């Protein structure tokens, strides 16, 4: 008995230890970014364009570029993800094909992002002649966040109580009417959560868009479909390469802090909307 108790205590202690380690790593990263990045943050830093290759000025167009890519990716990806989920849950009847479909989506999630960049550039940039442009970036990011959105929406649709579907079916509603009346309203929390998490993933992505959609300097707002944008990720990477210059490094940390804040805000909004919509659905 004592031995068993000792064993349990040891396991519990180890679990606490691992949890604290995980939290500590996150805390150290956040604290470092905050401490090193906060001196750079000011109104001018957020709302001015960068000058002298990022050593002076702010990161306004980098923030705008990041937001353009994120919003564009979500706008392109959402209808595709929603459509593929509804096709899988409402129209695909064979369990084997459903399983294959799920496997494909999960496999897509495991593809390294640089491969997305490469194939995306060859297809959208070269084959469809979009070149190094924000459109290429949006399309690559849209494909990349598709599994995140698909899984989140799929889980929400699958968790709709069976009796809701049956009640709608028994009232003579067609599949389209069932989607409007039951499936979409009841899975709204999953749709919103998936979109925001997808956005957060897109915000953190660098490799796939580095050479396909972005340019470091001399770029403001894109004036046409084929122009690149500049993003926070590219800005941080290029400034970090000039690590010997303390000014460049401070600005890189500042841009990192802003990027982190964008992701955090998205996650916070996700959690807030999710809990609100779930409460609404359970009302």
């Amino acid at each position, binding site marked *: 008995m004592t031995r068993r108790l000792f064993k349990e205590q040891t396991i519990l202690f180890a679990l606490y230890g691992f949890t604290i380690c995980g939290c500590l790593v996150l805390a150290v990263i956040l604290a470092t970014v905050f401490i090193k990045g906060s001196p750079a943050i000011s109104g001018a830093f957020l709302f001015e364009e960068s000058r002298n290759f990022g050593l002076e000025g702010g990161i306004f167009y980098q923030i705008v570029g990041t937001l353009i890519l994120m919003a564009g990716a979500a706008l392109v990806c959402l209808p595709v993800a929603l459509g593929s989920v509804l096709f899988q849950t409402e129209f695909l009847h064979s369990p084997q094909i459903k399983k294959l479909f799920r496997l494909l989506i999960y496999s897509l999630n495991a593809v390294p992002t640089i491969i997305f960049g490469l194939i995306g550039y060859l297809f959208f940039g070269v084959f469809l002649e979009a070149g190094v442009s924000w459109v290429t970036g949006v399309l690559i990011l849209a494909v990349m966040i598709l599994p995140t959105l698909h899984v989140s929406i799929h889980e929400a649709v699958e968790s709709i109580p069976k009796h*809701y579907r049956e009640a709608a079916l028994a*009232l*003579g509603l*067609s599949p389209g009417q069932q989607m409007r009346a039951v499936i979409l309203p009841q899975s709204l929390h999953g749709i919103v959560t998936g979109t925001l998490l997808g956005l957060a993933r897109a915000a953190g992505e660098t490799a796939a868009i580095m050479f396909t959609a972005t340019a470091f300097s001399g770029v403001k707002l894109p004036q046409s479909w084929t122009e690149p944008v500049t993003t926070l990720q590219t800005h941080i990477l290029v400034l970090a390469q000039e690590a010997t210059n303390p000014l460049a490094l401070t600005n890189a940390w500042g841009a990192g802090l802003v990027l982190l804040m964008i992701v955090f805000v998205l996650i916070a909004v996700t959690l807030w909307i999710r809990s609100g919509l779930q409460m*609404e659905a*359970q009302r």
Partner: protein
Amino acid sequence: MTENAIQLEQVRLSYSGKAVIETASCRIRKNAVTAVVGPSGSGKSTLLRTLCRMNDRLPGFQVEGSVIVLGRDIHDPTLNVYELRKRVGMVFQKPCVFPKSIVENVTFGLKFHASPNGKGFSERAEQSLRDVFLWDEVKDRLDDPANTLSQGQQQRLAMARTLAVDPEILLMDEPTSALDPKSSRAIEDLILSLKDRHTLVLVTHNVDQAERVAEDLICVDEKTICHKPCHPLPASVTLDPL
């Protein structure tokens, strides 16, 4: 001779080749209450759900023989199955209300079947709630969430939602099994009040209930069904096969 609302001829119901009901032949009269009784797992609910093709998406489910509902074979490829389900409504064992207001629950199906301008929705909703004797209890709080109602009220609300789309046949799958005795009696009174305008088919495992409300009885057992008028109900329910 009384007109039939439903007619089954040599019907076999099976899941992946395994028979749930081996052979079923019966007629269900129009504007009468027919009770389907039998032990648990005998296939009562499967039989009932077959009448409005609710089992269509169950993997491996198969129907053989002819199922005629309101004069049409329901497995005719040209039949509009959504129109069939509108004409043959179904109420389930567990009260199911949507996370919406009381009035939105009543008009839930109606808004997809009625004219798009939505004229007369409130009148139809009121009439349906009156039909299920719920109007006086909820008329002052129609916009309250439906799940604030008691279980018995929720079941009557589910019936009102079904009645709002004006079905000719109402199928009920053990509608009182999740309810207390008082609410069960309210549903039984409701069933009796509806039979002048609707054909009612009630699945129940309660023979006393079947005796109270039904004019005809279908007994499902041993993968077959038998059929007989049930007034007076035989002391031992041993009925002759049709």
